[in-house]
């Protein structure tokens, strides 16, 4: 900073201005907002103001120290005198008039005139440029009141006093008048930095009227050179210019201000905003709020915790009660944290409140945070918003309410998707790639050994597995309480399965399902027929028992017969030949192949079933992940049972586990038999489970039959085509089964949801 030589008058004038701007009484740094308002009042073009700021070094330092302020004032005088702005001009230009700061508007002036009727000289001096002769206290006040920026008479004490007094200024009544009046009330509030030059007048006028001290200060310069140094009371509409300047200057302020208090920024922003809708946030304001949000929380999608927000808004110096009310209004989802929208709403309310607007009882619509689309996330983020929006607190504990709507909302979504898949693609999503393997192997093996039952059975398991997969996936998506393992299972394979379903569906379009001998009747979802359906399967199985390979049959009913480890490469080889699009499953099949050795984990099932019949489901869930990778086909049944177990008693889950386990424990017995046995035992207990059990029993039977088909590479094309047809028949059968199962699944899940709701309602609050 170059050395600045000031004349005495300048020195005093500048120090007064500095004191005026130093509302925080720091004696070192002036509030940027005040300074900017001051410069605006200088009626200089914005770029000049910017230039001044740069020259004085404020932009570099980020604040206006005393020296910067003085330099800036000098530069203002230079600019006002028409000299080019140069750093050197500070000292070179001699006899520079004091900088002039213009009153904002005639209204304020007239108000001042009216308010200070006691200061008749003030009124007189309002019209005149020449201040009244010095020596007269009142006159001085009057003159000073008209003076440039009303240099502070003396102490900063007046500053706090003056802003408080603004009785004459009517509170804003309408948005339009608001803009003009904004300066008046703001002048009257010590917390509000003056919005524009106008307010300068009011505080000073009042300060003048109220001050007795400091007159002596002015006596020294009351005889200023009349024409130059004192304010030209702009009868021209400075307001309009100033107003127009404001939006532009606001930008400047943002660039210059780095240490500005939030409140000053708010004031400035406020003026530039349009008030067609008092609560509408303009883009500038919005941008400013977003920037402030970033200073607290860099992630725009993140939350500001309550404590940080509290600190931030406490800086606005509003009473805690009002801040508390603002928080209540703006925290839409009542989570104790502010999202970006909530933060902008809160900030806007703070701004409005500081401007004198009363806080509304309800959040204005323009400030309401936008609810996230349901589709986007089933997370708590949007759910609480919706729950909160509904108004009355839900019956369920607040913490649970997010989960419940999420359940409900995702559930229809998934329902739709599953239905779509059921309708459009009768072939459901496969969950067990091994079934695809089976189909592939089946196709490769097509030949003389293909029997009618086997082909549809071949198709059925895949469909069933897919449908079960859909069921499980649906459950997983909707049920937050479903075990994580199953969800991961289903979700990972879902996209692939769906694709395969599509392809498979297409491949089935042209086939006639009745080429071969009619497949066994599709399993009907009737608890009473569980045995019959499995009987059918049993018949089928007995037919092909001889052909069944030893190790392959050893699957739980729901699991498609796994190729033995020796045959594991088979599917990989045959994969390219698969015309049904099963190739899409290849990506999952490699995962399955290495897991096939886990096949031996059936023994674990036995132990598991024996030990876990009455254990909690968690144990089952933990053990399930071990077994499931190896027992993909059992996933549907397991997941069904697991999901249901969440909502139903442990008995059912325990029953489900033993069911699967039992199915696995009879490796060489015809699959349906153990299934039927289990079904019998469970029939009395859980009819609903039985339905699924039937399906899985059927599925198991179907799947079990697949391995019985001898695989011979290089079958005739006709055999392959026959097997394809049979597969397609099985596919249709399984598709029907799938739709039925899905319907049952939906019903079961709805029951589960209702039960969970009841459970939550009945459970005593264990938390606040």
């Amino acid at each position: 900073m170059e050395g600045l030589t000031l004349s005495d008058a300048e020195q005093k004038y500048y120090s007064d201005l500095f004191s005026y701007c130093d509302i925080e009484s720091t004696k070192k740094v002036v509030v940027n907002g005040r300074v900017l308002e001051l410069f605006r009042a200088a009626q200089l073009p914005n770029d000049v103001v910017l230039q001044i700021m740069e020259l004085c070094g404020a932009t570099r330092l980020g604040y206006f120290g005393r020296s910067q302020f003085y330099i800036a004032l000098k530069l203002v005088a230079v600019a006002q005198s028409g000299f080019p702005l140069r750093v050197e001009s500070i000292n070179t230009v001699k006899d520079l008039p004091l900088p002039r700061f213009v009153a904002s508007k005639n209204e304020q002036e007239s108000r001042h005139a009216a308010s200070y009727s006691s200061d008749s000289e003030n009124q007189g001096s309002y019209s005149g440029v020449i201040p009244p002769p010095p020596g007269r206290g009142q006159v001085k006040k009057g003159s000073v009141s008209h003076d440039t920026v009303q240099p502070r008479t003396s102490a900063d004490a007046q500053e706090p006093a003056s802003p408080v007094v603004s009785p004459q200024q009517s509170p804003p009544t309408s948005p339009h008048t608001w803009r003009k009046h904004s300066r008046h009330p703001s002048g009257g509030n010590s917390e509000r930095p003056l919005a524009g030059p106008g307010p300068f007048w009011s505080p000073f006028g009042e300060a003048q009227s109220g001050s007795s001290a400091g007159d002596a200060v002015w006596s020294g310069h009351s005889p200023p050179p009349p024409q130059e140094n004192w304010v030209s009371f702009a009868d021209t509409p400075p307001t309009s210019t100033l107003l127009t300047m404001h939006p532009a200057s606001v930008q400047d302020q943002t660039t210059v201000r780095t240490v500005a208090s939030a409140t000053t920024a708010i004031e400035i922003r406020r003026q530039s905003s349009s008030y067609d809708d008092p609560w509408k946030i303009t883009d500038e304001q919005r941008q400013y709020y977003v920037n402030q949000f970033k200073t607290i929380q860099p992630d725009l999608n993140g939350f500001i915790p309550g404590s940080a927000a509290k600190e931030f808004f406490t800086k606005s110096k509003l009473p805690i009660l009002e801040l508390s009310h603002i928080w209540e209004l703006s925290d839409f989802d009542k989570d104790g944290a502010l999202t970006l929208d909530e933060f902008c709403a809160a900030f806007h309310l703070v701004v409005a409140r500081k401007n004198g607007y009363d806080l509304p009882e309800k959040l204005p619509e323009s400030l309401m945070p936008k609810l996230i689309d349901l589709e986007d996330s089933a997370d708590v983020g949007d759910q609480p918003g919706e729950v909160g929006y509904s108004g009355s607190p839900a019956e369920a504990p607040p913490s649970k309410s997010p989960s419940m709507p999420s359940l409900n909302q995702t559930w229809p979504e998934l329902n739709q998707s599953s239905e779509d898949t059921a309708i459009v693609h009768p072939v459901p999503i496969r969950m067990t790639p091994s079934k695809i393997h089976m189909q592939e192997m089946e196709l490769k093996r097509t030949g003389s050994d293909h029997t009618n039952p086997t082909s549809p059975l071949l198709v059925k398991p895949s469909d069933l597995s897919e449908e079960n997969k859909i069921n499980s996936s649906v459950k997983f998506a909707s049920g937050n309480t479903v075990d994580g393992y199953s969800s991961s299972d289903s979700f990972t394979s879902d996209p692939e399965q769906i694709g395969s379903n599509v392809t498979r569906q297409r491949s089935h379009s042209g086939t006639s399902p009745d080429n071969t001998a009619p497949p066994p009747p599709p399993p009907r979802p009737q608890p009473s027929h569980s045995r019959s359906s499995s009987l059918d399967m049993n018949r089928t199985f007995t037919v092909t028992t001889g052909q069944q390979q030893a190790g392959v049959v050893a699957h739980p009913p729901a699991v498609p017969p796994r190729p033995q480890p020796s045959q594991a490469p088979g599917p990989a080889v045959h994969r390219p030949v698969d015309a049904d699009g099963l190739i899409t499953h290849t990506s999952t099949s490699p995962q399955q192949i290495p897991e096939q050795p886990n096949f031996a984990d059936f023994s674990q099932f036995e132990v598991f079933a024996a030990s876990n019949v009455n254990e909690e489901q968690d144990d089952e869930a933990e053990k399930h992940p071990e077994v499931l990778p190896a027992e993909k086909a059992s996933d549907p049944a397991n997941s069904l049972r697991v999901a249901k177990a969440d909502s139903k008693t442990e008995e059912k889950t325990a029953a489900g586990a033993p069911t699967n386990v039992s199915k696995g424990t009879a490796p060489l017995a015809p699959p349906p038999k153990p299934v039927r046995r289990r079904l019998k035992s469970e029939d009395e207990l859980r009819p609903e489970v039985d339905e699924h059990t039937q399906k899985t029993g059927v599925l198991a039977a179907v799947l079990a039959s697949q391995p019985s088909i001898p695989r011979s590479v290089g079958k005739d094309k006709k055999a392959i085509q026959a097997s394809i047809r049979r597969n397609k028949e099985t596919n249709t059968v399984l598709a029907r089964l799938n739709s039925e199962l899905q319907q049952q699944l939906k019903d079961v899940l709805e029951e589960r949801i209702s039960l969970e709701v009841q459970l939550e309602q009945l459970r005593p609050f264990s938390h606040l």
Partner: protein
Amino acid sequence: MAVCIAVIAKENYPLYIRSAPTENELKFHHMVHTSLDVVDEKISAMGKALLDQRELYLGLLYPTEDYKVYGYVTNSKVKFVMVVDSSNTALRDNEIRSMFRKLHNSYTDVMCNPFYNPGDRIQSRAFDNMVTSMMIQVC
């Protein structure tokens, strides 16, 4: 329904008390104060059970000829006391429970406000509105 609703802090001083203006409020304040003993008695009786199993809704604390007093305590020992006009025979236990649940939810929202210091009087307008709605229900 309720003629008087009070929120009592853990240390048994009122955080919020509001009566229907028709009656002399001092009488209700006194009833609430005396009911605190009953609440403490019920809490201690249930205290042997695990905290989670303790029912938050305390039920009818004591009936007088004109009024019934219901109690509800949260896990942080904040008590809600509700005085109900006995002439409202249609008021079922479930409704009382739901009213306490609403109270609890609103209280939770007040707590979530970072500007609220626990232990201060509750001055939240939203809470006031909710309580008013519950009291106006009766009239």
